[in-house]
């Protein structure tokens, strides 16, 4: 494929300005031990955000990047789960909904010494750790020694407490997928009652900081609250939730990142002089299970599976492209994924498309400004780009990297972007947007 440069692609001279701005965002959003995703909308530490942030932060201070991740591991539960949110005890309970008094993590046996949410997020952390270790010089191995057992415990939790038939991990709440209100969850969520009387007790905080048209709807939010309250009221018991939870999906991105994290763990184990074959075998097992269970020949990408109804969910979302990150995929699967990514549904590399849209451009439900129902996000764009690199499609990967830089140059460090106009949406001074810009430009140096 021949790609023509976009007219608005920033020059190298502008990179310097963007990097300085990105550093200012990350240093402002740092809170002594970790980075908030956004000082207004997300005033605590988020799990997968911290992994993406650490990838960029390592170029400013490897020490801070390591601290970011160790802080997160300091909130790991005894069962191995690394929580989606670690609450900052200095921030009022009602600054974010649902806050610590709703999650009530301290009521759980084996809870960490700080309040957290009770769900997990995609495991990108091992990749971040593996990236940071060499940057720490002689302290790298000490950091690896501390981080490795935490990462191993997390993956053991996923394997032992979250897998369903077929050996893939199942997620119990849309927030665990990272793509919270993805159209793929419309069908499984339809089985969950949307009880608006919950809003008599609970008040959304997110819509105070971003436009209503850019955030999930009240119907979806009522379902999110119901699901979290039920999981909480069953003591975050994974036997119960796998048997009876109202929402249970197998997501291709979560599982792909789980397999990717096993490859990163193999690299860390090698550095530590430990056996790494088990990690490689686990990555191969997950990859093969995904190809068997989640690959859709006629959709041309991976799809999620609704465990409750037993059906594959046909929506073409960016979550189905991200498994391209796995080196062990069959070549014909890789070829089909790239055809889908460049085809009508996502049109990556096309002159009028910025990055990777989060949802099928041709679907009537595509909403280019609403959270994960259409906009381009920089983390998912970055993941797809790295997958293209894995399989040797460097030119297309560079285009996505250029798009990532171009979106920031055009619209700033926004949370997400209109996939066709490039306009910014959601919160501003968003940490992973700054971190991934730094990481991409540092890699291109």
């Amino acid at each position, binding site marked *: 494929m021949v790609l023509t440069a976009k007219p608005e692609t920033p020059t190298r001279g502008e990179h310097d300005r963007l*990097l*300085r701005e990105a550093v200012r965002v990350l240093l402002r959003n740092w809170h002594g031990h970790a980075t908030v995703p956004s000082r207004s909308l997300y005033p605590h530490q988020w799990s997968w955000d911290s992994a993406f942030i650490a990838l960029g932060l390592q170029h*400013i*201070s490897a020490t*801070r990047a390591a601290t970011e991740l160790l802080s997160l591991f300091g909130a790991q539960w005894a069962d191995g789960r690394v929580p989606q949110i670690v609450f900052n005890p200095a921030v009022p309970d009602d600054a974010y909904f649902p806050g610590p008094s709703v999650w009530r993590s301290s009521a759980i046996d084996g809870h960490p010494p700080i309040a957290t949410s009770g769900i997990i997020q995609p495991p990108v952390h091992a990749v971040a750790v593996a990236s940071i270790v060499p940057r720490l010089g002689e302290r790298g191995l000490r950091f690896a020694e501390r981080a490795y057992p935490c990462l191993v415990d997390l993956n053991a939790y996923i394997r032992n407490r979250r897998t369903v038939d077929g050996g893939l991990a199942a997620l119990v709440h849309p927030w665990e997928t990272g793509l919270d209100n993805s159209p793929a969850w419309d069908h499984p969520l339809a089985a969950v009652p949307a009880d608006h009387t919950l809003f008599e007790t609970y008040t959304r905080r997110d819509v105070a900081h971003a436009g209503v048209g850019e955030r999930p709807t009240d119907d979806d939010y009522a379902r999110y609250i119901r699901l979290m309250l039920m999981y909480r009221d069953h003591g975050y018991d994974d036997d119960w939730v796998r048997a009876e939870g109202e929402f249970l999906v197998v997501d291709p991105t979560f599982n792909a990142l789980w397999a990717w994290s096993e490859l990163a763990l193999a690299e860390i184990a090698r550095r530590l002089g430990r056996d790494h074959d088990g990690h490689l075998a686990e990555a191969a097992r997950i990859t093969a299970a995904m190809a068997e269970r989640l690959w859709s020949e006629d959709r041309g990408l991976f799809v999620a599976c609704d465990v409750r109804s037993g059906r594959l969910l046909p929506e073409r979302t960016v979550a189905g492209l991200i498994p391209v990150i796995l080196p062990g995929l069959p070549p014909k699967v890789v070829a089909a994924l790239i055809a889908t990514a460049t085809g009508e549904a996502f049109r990556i590399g096309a002159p009028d498309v910025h990055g990777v849209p989060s949802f099928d451009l041709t679907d009537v439900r595509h909403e280019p400004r609403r959270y994960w129902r259409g906009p381009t996000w920089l983390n998912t764009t970055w993941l797809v780009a790295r997958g293209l690199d894995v399989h040797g499609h460097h030119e297309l990967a560079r285009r996505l990297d250029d798009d990532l830089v171009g979106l920031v140059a055009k619209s700033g460090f926004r949370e997400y972007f209109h996939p066709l106009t490039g306009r910014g949406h959601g919160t501003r001074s968003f940490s992973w947007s700054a971190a991934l810009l730094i990481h991409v430009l540092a890699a291109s140096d």
Partner: protein
Amino acid sequence: MRHTVRLAVQEQYLRGATMIEKWDHARRLGFDAIELRGAGEGHFAARLDELKAAAAAGVIMPTVCVDMRHFVGDFDAEKRADALVQMKSQLSVMAEIGGRLAMTPASYGMFSKRLPPFVPPRSDEEDTEILLEAFGQLADHAESEDVIIALEPLNRYENHMINTLADAQALCEKIGSRHFGIAADTYHMNIEEADPPKAVIEAGPWIRHVQLSDSNRLEPGAGHIDWPVILDAVWAVGYDKELAFECRLSGEADEVLPVAVRRIRQSAWS
């Protein structure tokens, strides 16, 4: 973030009978510039001919760091007045030799609210009024000479008036002159700022000079400051002038300074 830095060393560490010999030493140690020391009682102005000759010979001397017994925020009106005369003179000398900046704290060693008797003889409001008057005059003089006067916050044990970059920034904003700014010193910041890099970002363009010293007042690298992040913060606010070593040394200058210079350049390049 990968960037390069310009480094200056204060002249007292340099050997040589003349500034040109000292410059040779500074270059051998790895520095790009010399920071002068500005003694009082007219001593600095008395060096004008020597400094002009050095500048003509290519010695880079962009800044002078005050080295006096009393300062513009002194409790004693006569001493304050003298400090103003001295600082204006130092600004004029810097203009004559092609330099860009002179710097001073509000005071040094005069009073600490953390040491007995704890309560200063002057109110905070009076302190502010005196500093606004002094730095207003100095900013006007700096503007007429087209140079910069910078206020250095000192830690709480050395000064009771201006301890943080935000303290200094408040004065800068009130005076509102492009010829008056902040001299940020990493040693004092390590004591006073909750988050030194964030403090640099917040002070932003008001920072007109930077001095480097580690957490223990020794040369950079001899303490526990996280140098990559503080250097990136300085870079991110667009400061591209000299970073001047103002520190004690953990050993012989010829041994410890070249190591510190390499460490700082490496930290900026990482």
